[in-house]
């Protein structure tokens, strides 16, 4: 387990980003993470297309990554196909030094977000966070 240090000297926890086609699902999932894991993990959510309808928006995903940014990296949890493709695109549009510290996690959205946040809270590395959440992925 490796703990990246922030400039303040406290260990940086991996940030979690929740991306759903539905703003309600994204916010609800974030609410569950907050209630079950607390507020010490950097967390951001986004949902909805650029018009606010169902869908995902690359611009909103980039903003959510910025909001949850941590020196330890950011793990993104998504619901369906378009959210995954748009998140991959968003990662590629990040500044280069952030790209390698941002990962897309292949796990069910709600359970994965809670597992990822729990691992992040415990000080797990970006790799630990991803692996723990991906244990939930159907095989």
């Amino acid at each position, binding site marked *: 387990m490796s703990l990246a240090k922030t400039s303040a000297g406290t260990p940086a926890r991996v940030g979690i980003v929740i991306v759903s086609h539905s703003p309600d699902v994204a916010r609800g999932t974030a609410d569950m993470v907050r209630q079950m894991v607390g507020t010490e993990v950097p967390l951001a959510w986004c949902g909805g297309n650029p018009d606010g309808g169902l869908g995902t928006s690359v611009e909103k995903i980039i903003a959510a990554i910025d909001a949850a940014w941590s020196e330890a990296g950011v793990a993104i949890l998504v619901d*369906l196909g*378009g959210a995954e493709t*748009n998140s*991959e*695109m968003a990662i590629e549009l990040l500044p280069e030094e952030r790209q390698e510290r941002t990962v897309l996690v292949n796990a069910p959205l709600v359970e994965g977000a809670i597992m990822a946040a729990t691992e992040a809270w415990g000080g797990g590395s970006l790799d630990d966070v991803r692996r723990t959440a991906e244990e939930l992925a159907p095989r």
Partner: protein
Amino acid sequence: MTDLPGHMAVALGADDIETLFGAMARTIIAHAEELTALDQAIGDGDHGVNMKRGFEAVTANLPAIAAKPLPEALKAAGMELVMKVGGASGPLYGTLLMTLGKTLPAAPGRGDVAAALAAAIDAVKARGKSETGQKTMLDVLAPVQAAVARGEDLATIRAIAAEAAAATVPMRATRGRASFLGERSVGHMDPGARSSQLLVEAVCDAIGDFA
């Protein structure tokens, strides 16, 4: 119908680029309801609405896009689609245009177009983790690229795009939302194949107008 802008490389001017992207945007916007209807049959029902939103953004910025050299114009239009579409087709079509922009010279000849299309199709395959034969836009783009590489004329390229889109009807989807439907995806044209066909037709028409 004339040939592609010749075997001779000719730089496209701002008017040409405006014609090109204007034609693409008009056809997508005009067919938005049809694309959405196709997507309601086997997808998540938003392809037309999404593509319309993306191409409306391209239209809104058309003068600025057309003022750039062709490679930069393609990248700028692709970025509009990435940012504004709101579905998986945004990154897919955005990647297509942005890769064309990265690969094409400012004054492309036919060989350049064939090579750039091949590179763009590879980028779309990587973005969508897809191959031809899975009932997607690739099933139109790949035969169109082959036709361009063979040196077919514009009328033939249009016909090949139409045949390729129609050929997705009996296919079973194995990628994208339609793949959730399994056998039930058979019997419907793929909406991404149809939007690709529309864009190919628009490009052929615009190129016909240049000559």
